[in-house]
């Protein structure tokens, strides 16, 4: 097995942010697992603290999402709702889309511009 600090073990998600008046966007790139999920939730909480509780999470750059990712979206939406907003998901492709659909999150957190 590789040593704990080998480059291989650092693979994770990166988060880009785009703030707007109607909503803010978090664009996720890479692989979302237990290592990166706390960062996603932290970025959602940071937006909420800055007065932006309407968060659209763009998954188009994501190639992997596991249960830790699902939990981050579910908790993030709960935090947004507590602040009077919402968290929605968009852009999932491939296996990420399969997991979002299979879990039922697509139905609950799927972004519809007409009906957030």
């Amino acid at each position, binding site marked *: *097995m*590789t040593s*704990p*600090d*080998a480059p*291989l*073990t*650092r*693979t*994770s998600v990166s988060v880009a942010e785009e703030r707007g008046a109607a909503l803010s966007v978090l664009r996720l790139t890479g*692989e979302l*697992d*237990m*290592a990166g999920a706390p960062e996603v939730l932290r970025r959602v909480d940071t937006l909420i603290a800055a007065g932006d509780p309407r968060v659209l999470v763009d998954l188009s750059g994501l190639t*992997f999402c*596991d*249960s*830790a990712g*699902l*939990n981050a979206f*579910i*908790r993030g*939406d*709960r935090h947004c709702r507590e602040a009077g907003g919402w968290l929605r998901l968009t852009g999932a492709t*491939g*296996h990420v889309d*399969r*997991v979002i*659909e*299979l*879990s*039922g*999150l697509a*139905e*609950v*957190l799927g972004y519809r511009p007409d009906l957030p």
Partner: protein
Amino acid sequence: MSDAVPPAPRTVVPVHATPLLADGFNRGQVAGLRHTFAACAESAGLAGQRLDDFVLAVNELITNAVRHGGGTGELGLWLADGMLVCEVSDAGAGIGADRLSNHDRPAPDTAGGWGLWLADQLSEEMVVMTGPAGTTVRISTSLAGDLDAFEDIE
């Protein structure tokens, strides 16, 4: 790091089967082991959605082991009778009977409970052996099978 984990629990795979992969892991090695496992399963002939499904299922077992199973674990991957069989073991306190007997999908607003459910959904067979001395979960998928046999989202 293998000295950090106790001897692997009893395996249900025939002992003469040579593992395609056998490795210990800890919290910092989840992504690395996931990639190693994916390459190994792909070399064995698993492809497409079946490969992605199996990799995510195994990722969930590894994640459970490091989060709830004492922080370390052991993974083994075998080829047996045209099936890829993966076992993940930990020395944690075990999984409660109520959790094991519940096969329902967690409510979409529930944080938690997704890992084992996903592992079950995304493999063909899942067997859990658990007790106060640890947990071993075995999942399997056939290498050349009928895709319709999978529970699909469509």
